[in-house]
């Protein structure tokens, strides 16, 4: 079976000598199509660094990342950016929406960057905002939205180029319990529709909704729980 994502011997170290930090240390991870993998572990264990390496946002010091069997780590910055736009959706703890753009424009942006026509980008954005329950907020600036609504806009944006893989870094980390539940429900829907999902999280509810949970400690994957 071809994996959506595969990491082999992945390594990322910071600093040197006595201050060397092995943020990611010889990590192997394979994600099957449609699989949801939760990555849990204490703060500073390297989870976010690992997610950045998996998504090509950072380059490893060793090992490789394969996206649908093709190497992601060796690509030029331009080529990597192109892959990130179309093949991977990102959701971050701090939403990372553009404050000056409306919800609809934020969702449209990656579609336009990937070459969609303005009309097509608009169509997809409206559809996705409807899906995340924010059709009536499309014209709002992020500052006018609650945290939960902003994160749902961010999920819609992550989906606008219909990527087979979604990477999320603490998607409920900045949300209160009710807003986290909304995001959780959304992620469960994505799982059911067969999108592969890798989620770094402290939230046991997200971990409990995954197909598989891996535990990271001191840069290494040390434990695994299969939930289905």
């Amino acid at each position, binding site marked *: 079976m071809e994996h959506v994502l595969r990491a082999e011997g992945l390594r990322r170290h910071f600093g040197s000598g006595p201050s060397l930090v092995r943020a990611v240390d010889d990590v192997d991870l394979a994600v099957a199509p449609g699989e949801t993998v939760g990555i849990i572990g204490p703060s500073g264990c390297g989870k976010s660094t690992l997610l950045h390496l998996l998504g090509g946002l950072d380059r490893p010091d060793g090992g490789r990342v394969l996206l649908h069997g093709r190497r992601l780590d060796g690509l030029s910055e331009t080529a990597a950016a192109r892959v990130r736009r179309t093949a991977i959706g990102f959701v971050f703890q701090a939403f990372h929406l553009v404050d000056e753009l409306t919800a609809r424009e934020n969702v449209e942006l990656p579609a336009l960057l990937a070459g969609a026509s303005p009309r097509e980008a608009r169509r997809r954005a409206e559809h996705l905002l409807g899906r995340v329950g924010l059709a009536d907020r499309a014209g709002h600036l992020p500052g006018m939205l609650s945290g939960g609504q902003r994160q749902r806009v961010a999920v819609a944006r992550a989906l606008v180029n219909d990527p087979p893989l979604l990477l999320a870094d603490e998607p409920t980390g900045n949300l209160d319990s009710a807003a986290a539940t909304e995001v959780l429900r959304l992620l469960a829907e994505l799982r059911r529709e067969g999108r592969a999902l890798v989620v770094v999280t*402290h939230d046991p*509810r997200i971990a*409990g909704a995954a197909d598989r949970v891996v*535990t990271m400690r001191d840069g290494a994957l040390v*434990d695994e729980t299969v939930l289905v």
Partner: protein
Amino acid sequence: MQDVVLALLAKEPSHGYELRARLQTALGPLGDELNAGQVYVTLRRLEKAGLVDVRVVGQSDRPDRKVYDLTPAGRDRAAAWLTDLSWERTAPTEFHLKLTAAAASGMADPVALVDAQRRALLRRLAEVRRAAFDQPPGSAAALLLEGASLRLEADLRWLESCAAHWNNRTDEE
């Protein structure tokens, strides 16, 4: 179980089958292991203890059935149970002592025990959340499952603190 059955009878006299159905509605999937026999055995015990009265009611189209009602003593006990503030003791104390003993004796790696416990609790949490997903929102059964889920979430968070604590201890040695 006796107290629960008494409290259910406080609403109105009822027969065994109906009591079981009401229990199952309240418990949802967590009441699956409850069988009809348990309810009838409990009712018989309560009857012997003088806490319920039985009356046989004839039915024209079906066999007669027994209708149970609270005696005054039964009503007193149900009232006492409802206002009793005891709360089930939580598991962590024993687990905490296991980790302490494992580290002190060297018989097991506390971090490995935490990992095993996390796997078990994650599986339970996944089950509870799947079960909750199947319940109509706002139902009594969904409320009970929410409580189960929140406790498991708290335990899982605490396990991360345990992992950090014992992992650091191991590093220092």
